[in-house]
């Protein structure tokens, strides 16, 4: 049986997106968003667009995560309620 890798990646992406929205700890939500971006880069390599794939891995998973962590360090870590 051939395992459809794109289906598995899409399933993981949906699970990670729901977890990012549900979490109360903003720092772990941001780290999971980085993992989400990296899985998105894998999906784009699988969809034959390698240039978008490595741009997303560098800019989406790298720079956005760094910006978000810097913003959390200057504000608060926990979401209220």
């Amino acid at each position: 049986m051939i395992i459809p890798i794109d289906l598995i990646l899409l399933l993981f992406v949906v699970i990670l997106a729901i977890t990012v929205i549900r979490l109360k700890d903003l720092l772990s939500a941001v780290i999971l968003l980085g993992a989400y971006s990296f899985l998105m880069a894998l999906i784009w390599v699988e969809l034959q667009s390698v240039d978008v794939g490595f741009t997303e891995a560098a800019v989406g998973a790298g720079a956005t995560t760094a910006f978000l962590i810097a913003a959390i360090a200057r504000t608060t870590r926990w979401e209220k309620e």
Partner: protein
Amino acid sequence: MEWFIAKIFAKYNYWVSILLMMIGFYGIVAKDNLIKKILGLNIFQTAIFLYFISLGAVKGGTAPIVDEKIIQKGYLYANPLPHVLILTAIVVSVATTAVALSLVIRMHREYGTIEESEIIKKSSEGHQTGENSKVHH
């Protein structure tokens, strides 16, 4: 009926794209925390990118790096136009996130919180006292 179900599940990339779009939209609308709203915005943007990249993909194709030999052997390659559009959109999305985060940091410095309801409450109080002081002067 079977034909209908097969027709629906053949385009699962688009369904996942719509699902991610609605998850991100929930994050933007329903969450009170401003950083959580930005995370929802990021998820929404990635859902749109997934839709566009899925439009350009070709079944059994390769990456659009075209060579003379590849054309002669008759290989298929993906449509590169959506890739170029999305490459620009990724950079724009990072810029949007950075501007939004700088506004959040500024609001935190001003009001001491990043919860939207508390900021609205505090800003309306400040506005009222500002009005009163104006009247006194």
